[in-house]
């Protein structure tokens, strides 16, 4: 079981606030235009080259990958990949010519023909950016040796959008910030972060909502800064936010009103018959905070997992049948009951 345990089934370092760490490297092959100028046939050609490069490498990790043609997946399977943060929302649209290489434990994914030819992504639990980068770096080197990535002496790795050139690195941490969200600190924080080249966004990135208080903190600048420095900067700012969230949380949770609210959330989760995704995220977020503040005795990893697997597409995918919104709300409530009344 442990071999295929997913990142969202484990709690990592700084796990009370940090859900996961993500490293993404944008890379392009030298002799092809960027994906938006490619035919479907050329896109497939690139995908085959990447697949072959992995297979022919003697690396132990190569054997872990499964090769997925995105156009062969159902809408639910695709949506679930997005909900589990394995692919970007953009990658889920217009899936022709798009391919995915994914390890069994869902830690490493390579999106082929997203905005760039390759998006190498490593996702790990808790605050573990260095570990995630180490893996991404290895895969990058391995593929570069076989494929030859587009690189410019001054501009570094070249990407379709100039915002990614240089290292092509986007490092992010998924933070659970219920207290900073409800005390409206987050909005002020966003302005300050943008001044130092970082950004705080919703659960699924640009323009999305922070459901259940889940935010993505990531770097913006990729040129003129080394991978190590970018990661160090991000980590040190993340630590400041984490400390802040903790101190607001503990003050917050001393109030009887907050304690009452959290316990009511748990009660609803345990006994409701119908539960929408939005409501479940909101309630689980409060319960997660309650566990961290020792108001509730429960496994934190269990709650994080529920926040992932109870999302609409993942629910349908795991049920292996179509579900109407009401059927989903019914099933979600049942699963919550079963998980939390143990």
């Amino acid at each position, binding site marked *: 079981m442990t071999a295929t345990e997913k990142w969202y089934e484990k709690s990592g370092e700084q796990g009370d606030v940090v859900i996961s760490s993500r490293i993404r490297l944008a890379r*392009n092959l*030298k002799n*092809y*235009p*960027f994906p*938006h*100028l490619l035919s479907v046939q050329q896109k497939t050609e690139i995908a085959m080259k990447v697949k072959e490069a992995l297979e022919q490498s003697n690396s132990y990790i190569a054997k872990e990958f499964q090769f997925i043609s995105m156009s062969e997946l159902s809408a639910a399977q695709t*949506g679930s990949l997005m909900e589990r943060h394995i692919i970007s*929302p953009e990658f*889920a649209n217009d899936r022709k010519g798009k391919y995915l290489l994914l390890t069994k434990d869902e830690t490493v994914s390579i999106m082929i023909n997203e905005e760039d030819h390759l998006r190498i992504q490593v996702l790990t639990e808790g605050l573990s950016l260095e570990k995630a980068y180490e893996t991404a*770096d290895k895969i*990058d*080197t391995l593929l*570069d*040796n076989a494929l*030859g*990535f*587009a*690189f*410019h*002496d*001054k*501009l*570094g*790795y*070249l*990407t*379709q*959008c*100039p*915002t990614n*050139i*240089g*290292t092509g*690195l986007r490092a992010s941490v998924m933070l659970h910030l219920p207290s900073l969200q409800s005390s409206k600190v987050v909005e002020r924080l966003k302005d300050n972060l*943008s001044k130092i*080249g970082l950004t705080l966004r919703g659960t699924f990135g*640009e*323009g*999305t*909502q922070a*459901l259940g208080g889940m935010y993505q903190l990531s770097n*913006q*600048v*990729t*040129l*003129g*800064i*080394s*991978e190590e420095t970018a990661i160090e900067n991000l980590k040190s700012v993340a630590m400041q936010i984490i400390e802040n969230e903790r101190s607001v949380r503990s003050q917050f949770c001393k109030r009887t009103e907050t304690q009452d609210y959290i316990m009511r959330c748990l009660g609803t989760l345990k006994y409701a018959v119908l539960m929408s*995704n*939005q409501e479940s995220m909101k309630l689980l977020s409060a319960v997660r905070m309650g566990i961290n503040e020792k108001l509730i005795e429960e496994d934190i990893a269990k709650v994080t997992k529920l926040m992932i697997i109870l*999302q*609409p597409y993942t629910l349908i995918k795991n049920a292996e049948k179509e579900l109407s*919104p009401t059927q989903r709300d019914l099933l979600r409530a049942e699963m919550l009951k079963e998980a939390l009344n143990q």
Partner: protein
Amino acid sequence: MLCELCGKHQATTYSKTIINGEYTEMYLCSECAKAKGIGINNIFSQTATDFSSFLGSFFGGGLPSRTSATRCKSCGSAFTDIARSGKVGCAECYSNFYEELLPSIQKIHGNIQHRGKIPTGASAEVKRKRDIEKTKRELEQAVKEENFELAVKLRDKIKEMEGGGNHDSN
């Protein structure tokens, strides 16, 4: 999450309205948002990294004269295509339109020199320059820490590295 109105499509728009003092919030898909006349414009006005408008506005009315006719030898993109779409055509475009792209790059990153990883296949010259740069930073640090013994060693190392490069290129 799914649109709260149709329940079919992925919600992409968040709408907050106050009508007669009553506060409502909704998550809508792009179609329902459009039908209700909200969304799209709001979303794009918020995205600071919308590069298409960024490039476009940066060059404004006066694109450099040669660019309108020049096309990338590799993918056929003209600079106007790149400025309009916000999408660079291929890796070669960066060399072909280097001068044109540089001001935007400077504006985005506040920098125009890569300092990260270098691929194994990159030229030895790039690596040599990088090593020299790194040693120079170490030297600065050593001086700052008043570790003069190390500083002398590093200075000699830099001299040797720089000298070595001249021999190679001659």
